[in-house]
């Protein structure tokens, strides 16, 4: 089994492997930071996630601006500590000056963070964090619970929420264990309980990261709940699937749809009225601040970036300015 997993990783990581190779060759020549370029390793969750792809754009831009080498690494597909820990080990063997780590598990990755710090490598956390943040230079994250609350507000506005009336809403998740999904769901539920008690969450379903399954879930809901008022599609995959299901049934604009993640394709659908609103995170900004903090810290022993930074989510709707659209739309890395 282990062998087959390795074979899978080896063949699947065509991109990652080649990146690793370039990373190896560039960092092997940068072991002494005083007379050579600084190198910052960035170990994220899963290469295939657009969120991390958008983050890569910010990381590359900031690394170029600061004049440091960036070693970008992560499993091609799996967001899990089993695949991430060996990647962190490999990266640490390249002796970077700094490490931006997105721990896929706060406990499992603690030892990796401790090991890096013991080697004198400055560590920052982005998006998620290890349990012990005391020796981490900074932790920068988006506020997913706030995003969930903003989604509830957008949905309530679209359906013309009136106190005393009842409304039916369903929520598409990717899985029960995705921590960002859970935080958004809790933020949504808390806001509904506080401000919109007439909104009833009729059902939740999982798409298992497959947009076609997300579309299928929405199709079934539309049949089961003919009076459905709104859908909260909690991530990019669910957003794509839900939008296409409404288009096929010619229900766009009739049922409020609030999605998540500003993929260019989804942002275009805000303009055309398919999405009521799209909650965007700012992954590129998170990466930028983390690299900035590490470079400052390595050079001067301190940083102007706070120890914990929470960047709020942003709700894109039809009235969002072009400047904000440009700022929040995820850009594909090349």
């Amino acid at each position, binding site marked *: 089994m282990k062998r*087959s997993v390795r*074979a*899978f*990783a*080896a*063949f*699947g*990581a*065509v*991109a*990652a492997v080649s990146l690793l190779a370039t990373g190896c060759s560039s960092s092997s020549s940068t072991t002494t930071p005083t007379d050579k370029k600084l190198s910052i390793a960035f170990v994220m969750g899963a*290469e*295939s*996630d*657009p969120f991390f*792809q958008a983050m890569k754009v910010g990381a590359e831009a900031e690394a170029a601006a600061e004049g440091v080498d960036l070693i970008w690494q992560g499993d*091609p*597909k799996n967001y899990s500590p089993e695949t991430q820990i060996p990647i962190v080990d490999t990266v640490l063997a390249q002796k970077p000056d700094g490490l931006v780590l997105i721990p896929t598990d706060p406990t499992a990755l603690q030892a990796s963070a401790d090991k890096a710090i013991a080697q004198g490598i400055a560590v920052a956390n982005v998006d998620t964090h290890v349990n012990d943040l005391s020796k981490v230079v900074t932790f920068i994250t988006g506020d997913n619970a706030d995003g969930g609350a903003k989604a509830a507000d957008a949905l309530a506005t679209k359906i013309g929420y009136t106190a005393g009336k009842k409304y039916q809403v369903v929520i598409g*998740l990717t899985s*029960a264990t995705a921590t960002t999904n859970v935080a958004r769901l809790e933020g949504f539920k808390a806001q509904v309980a506080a401000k919109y008690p007439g909104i009833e969450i009729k*059902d*939740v*379903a*999982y798409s*298992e*990261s*497959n*947009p*076609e*399954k997300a*579309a*299928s*879930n929405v*199709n*079934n*809901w*539309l*049949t*089961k709940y003919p009076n459905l008022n709104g859908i909260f599609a909690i991530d*990019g*995959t669910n957003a*794509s*699937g839900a*939008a*296409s299901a409404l*288009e*096929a*049934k*010619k229900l766009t604009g009739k049922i409020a749809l609030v999605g998540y993640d500003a*993929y*260019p*394709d*989804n942002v*275009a*659908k805000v303009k*055309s009225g398919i999405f009521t609103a799209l909650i965007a995170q700012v992954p590129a900004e998170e990466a930028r601040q983390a690299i900035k903090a590490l470079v400052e810290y390595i050079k001067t022993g301190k940083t102007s970036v706070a120890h914990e930074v929470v960047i709020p989510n942003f709700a894109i709707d039809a009235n969002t300015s072009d400047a904000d659209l440009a700022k929040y739309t*995820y850009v*594909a*890395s*090349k």
Partner: protein
Amino acid sequence: MTDSNQLVAKVRGLVSNQASILVGVLAVLTIVFTVIEPKFFSVATANNILTDWGSVVLIAVGQTFVVISGGIDLSVGAIIGLSGVVSAYVMANVMGYTSGTPAQDAYWPLLVGTIVSVAVGAVVGLVNAVLINKTRIVPFIATLATMGACLGLSVIFSSGMPIGGPNDFNLIAAMDYNTNPFSVVVILVAVVVAIAGLFLHKARFGLYTYAIGSNSFAARAAGINVEKHITKIYALSGALSGLAGMYVYIRLGAGSPSSGTGRELDAIAAVVIGGASLMGGVGRIWGTVLGTLILFTVQSGLIMIGVAPDWKKVVVAVLIAAAVAAQTLQKKNGQR
């Protein structure tokens, strides 16, 4: 007395018939779901199930050929993602059609996209065949490797984000949500499946497939070019997966790298529910068609009757196990 004996024999013949058992299972499921949630018995639900059926039955039919030949193809789900992304890239970035293209202008790029999609799938299928025939890697590992490669390539092509392109959502919509649950693309899929069925059951192609799966040494001794036929089978499975990639593209209006996630397991489940043996040599297209239908009837039904999402997977797993067990028992009875 003779009449009743004939009747018993008839009933026994019907019960031991694979297809009638599957139809029976489907009927029972439909009745149970309808009793709990009357809305289940509707054109809308039929349309939901058929729409889900369309993509998976294509890869499941390809998988049927592979499984009958004694192999397995794990790359089918990843091909859906890769072929969808590549054809979306060609339609949007090469041909210049976008999601804003009017529906009536979308047919030409969609046709080109279909050709690209099928070609991408066929190429991956050929790579599978080369790995299996030339390097002697077992199909499980060979197709696991191409699955990983396809996943990686689809992310490289798309940066992990869906690529929106031209579409006419009427192609995937029910012809009439009150009377006719079929969509244009589902009918096209049914035609492709029927042709594949003729190939498997009425042509030499199918005969060779069964022969290789039953005993590849005997097939070779009988003069069948086993390597050549295996190549054709994996290329067919790849091409059908590419077609499924285009189907999902039309469904979503975008090529998404994650659009085939986990579908290889759905396809294998459908083939096994349909009565094919993973040991090779046994299987029918009808079985796969009904197996896929059962799979999505269950998934739709569980949402319709409001089973908590955490329990859905368990229920689906139990149903698959029950379906396969029932068939094994029925085969034993048939042998007696």
